[in-house]
């Protein structure tokens, strides 16, 4: 093989060998179909929908109105006294019981 033959051979177009020229072109130029949503995204949406349904069914109760409550319990035993000693006062519970004959 002489130098000229080598040069010709090296510069030869070999693309005639290819079996994919037209099929690849078609594949590349045809828009790909929309990909389906991945399974995990769908399952996430289902979980959100279930949470919304649960909230609608078991609605959280609102806090009771104070006026309504105190109408029935004007002097709750759980109420704190402002002097810090409670219902028996600073004398102590025993003295209180003795004096009031509770």
């Amino acid at each position, binding site marked *: *093989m002489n130098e000229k*033959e*080598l*040069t010709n*051979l*090296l*510069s*030869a*177009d*070999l*693309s005639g*060998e*290819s*079996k*994919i*020229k037209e099929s*690849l*072109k078609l594949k*590349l*130029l045809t828009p790909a179909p929309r990909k389906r949503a991945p399974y995990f995204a769908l399952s996430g949406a289902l979980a959100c929908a279930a949470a919304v349904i649960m909230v609608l069914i078991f609605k959280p109760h609102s806090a009771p109105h104070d006026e309504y409550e105190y109408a029935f319990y004007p002097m709750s035993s759980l109420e704190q006294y402002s002097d810090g000693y409670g219902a028996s006062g600073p004398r102590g519970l025993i003295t209180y019981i003795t004096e009031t004959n509770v």
Partner: protein
Amino acid sequence: MQFEDFYNTYFSKVYNYSRYRSANAAEADELTSLIFEKLLSKFSLFDETRNIEVWLFALARNVVNDYYRRATIRSFFSLGSGGDEDETDVPMPDDTLARAEEEDGKRRLFSALTRLEQRERELINLKHNQMLNNRQIAEVTGLSESNVGTILARSMQKLRVILGSKL
């Protein structure tokens, strides 16, 4: 430029580049397909001020290198021999004498090219088939311009010796 025009213009260049870097025509088809998929995904990002062939071959080079890196990893974990790199799959010659001689020349050339290193084959292709100059080859491969010249000269000498010994 629309992608279809780009494809029609550069298909043969991309195929020839793949063919020089692959073991056979089927592998070249696979590489060509991978390169065009990558080119399509990056086509809108192409900077028109740049040389399109330098951009094209730099991208093609990355795709081919990735392909062989993955193939090396696959063959490392594979039980098969994977020793088909030296095989060439040039179609059988037709019955006409000219065609037969051409096919014989191609067969000998690709048989000789398989004895060169990947980098040497790539540089020979970029220089003598894609007709890029040394500066453009340097830009594509990341080598220095003088290094490209040295490797090319050595590679061509090696190729001549291999082809000469086969005569």
